[in-house]
């Protein structure tokens, strides 16, 4: 699992690679937190269930990230562990472990995950996704 950031004039584009779709969702979450949170911790004392639905993996990825953004903004929740019950082209459901970040621990304000130039495809090694976050 790996992510990197590609240059973009106004916002940030993350490129994520993973062997499975579940791991891709986890990697994309990692990319989001790398942008938004200072010094992401590995603690996981808080649990939440998260379920998103979509009409394809691309939409599912964006909905997943938007839910995480909402939880980060409203509940200050950062997910560090992901236990998936289901992750296919229609539904992603996972038990998340994580922590409540300190009020001063935000690095960037992420307005949302966009569909702009969204790319998600299977590769020889698994999956690759590119998604632009609006900052």
């Amino acid at each position: 699992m790996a992510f990197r950031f590609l240059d973009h004039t106004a916002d940030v584009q993350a490129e994520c690679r993973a062997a499975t779709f579940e791991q891709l969702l986890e990697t994309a979450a990692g990319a989001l937190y790398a942008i938004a949170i200072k010094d992401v911790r590995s603690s996981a004392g808080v649990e939440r269930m998260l379920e998103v639905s979509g009409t394809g993996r691309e939409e599912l990825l964006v909905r997943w990230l938007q839910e995480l953004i909402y939880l980060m903004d409203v509940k200050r929740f950062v997910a560090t562990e992901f236990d998936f019950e289901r992750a296919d082209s229609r539904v992603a459901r996972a038990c998340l472990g994580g922590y409540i970040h300190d009020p001063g621990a935000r690095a960037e304000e992420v307005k949302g995950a966009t569909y702009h130039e969204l790319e998600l495809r299977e590769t020889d090694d698994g999956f690759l996704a590119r998604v632009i976050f609006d900052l």
Partner: protein
Amino acid sequence: MSEIELRQLDETTWEIPQTPPMRVPGRIIASEKLLEPIRRDKAANQIANVACLPGVVGYAMAMPDAHWGYGFPIGGVAATDPNKGGVVSPGGVGYDINCGCRLMTTHLEYDTVKPRVRDLVNALYRDVPCGVGSEGAIPRLGRKEMKHVLETGARWAVKQGYGTQADLDATEDSGCMPGADAAAASERAIKRGETQLGTLGSGNHFAELGVVEQVFDDAAARVYGLAKGAVTLMIHSGSRGFGYQICDDYIRVMMQAAAKYGIQLPDKQLCCAPAESPEARQYLAAMAAAANYAWANRQIMMELVRRALQHALRISPRDLGAALLYDVCHNIAKFETHNVAGTPTRLCVHRKGATRAFPGSREEVSAQYRSVGQPVLIPGDMGTGSYVFAGTEEAMAKSFGSCCHGAGRVLSRSAARKAATAGELRDQLDARGIVVMARSKKTLAEEAPQAYKDIDAVADVVHKAGLGRRVARIRPIGVIKG
């Protein structure tokens, strides 16, 4: 994306010829130099995409500060005709609904306050909540109060004691967009915004002390209350988490709506629905609610600024003389009547990173500005300057009464961070007599002056193209950022 063909029409106008599936040509208002980055980052391609929207009228346009956005470029303008299947697109408004700015004039003279600028910036930094997730400016609102905010905007703030009627008279739409419906906003949007009212936010949002450095149009400057050497205060912020969630929620609705109405799109982020459809009406009602949140937000912050300056200088409101010149929104969709082939026609004008620039003949312009035209505020980067323009008849003819909203980015955030550290940047600004305080070093570096286009070059194009009449230039002296 393929290279876009451009045809130069005059010194400041370039046309993207209409080729299928475009429904109208595209127009870019720029100098040859400003055109380079617009071509390079594919904003021109995005204008060609916008020209494909159903019911689009005239031209899809890019302003001189345009750069790549999602769906519409930032600095994009397009009008659709509801009577001809014209659509409404959240991508033509953006995440930060009614991100905008307001400029306040004061009785303060720069020469008098110069020794106290650092104290004033400290006072603003202390009293105006800023930074990612900033909250706590006013007590948490109950649902009933939140409904009033969303449906009455800046009027709610004035009723609570944040400012006066004169502020509303100097705000676009008097600080309240009609048609707002709190019920059109999701519970999530309310949750995301309920603690953020009266806060600046982060990123490119700022509160900036400035001095009127140059006056170009004496008559207009007199009407606007802009005198050389006078201290001003500009606030740039929007609808915070509330607006972002509205955009998120309705992008999903509009993607389904586009499929439902059989609308083919070159870019998913241009998702849309016919203006008269239930989906579009709901979006517009929610968008108006977010616009009102933003106006309430800026109104509260302006009052916090007034109090901070009065307290720091130990002067009365009368001595401070802080008066709102104008408040403009630059991410919005509005129904306006424009001349289309000689016929007054009701259009839905999308301005994403673009400002309304109406002449004095328009009834929408505040009474006090009818003799000179609507003030148009164009903030530049924190190290260079900002401009005040007046709206013109020519803008009505060329751009549906629209102008640019700022300087526009040229560098990515990572490139900006590599160009200078926050400490180096602070020293550079200090050497220019500009005090800056920011919650985030990372954000400060990302917002470095070199990350933005040359505001003087942008202003020059605006003036030459006739989208606005140059009135005054303001030089920054102190900035707070989130």
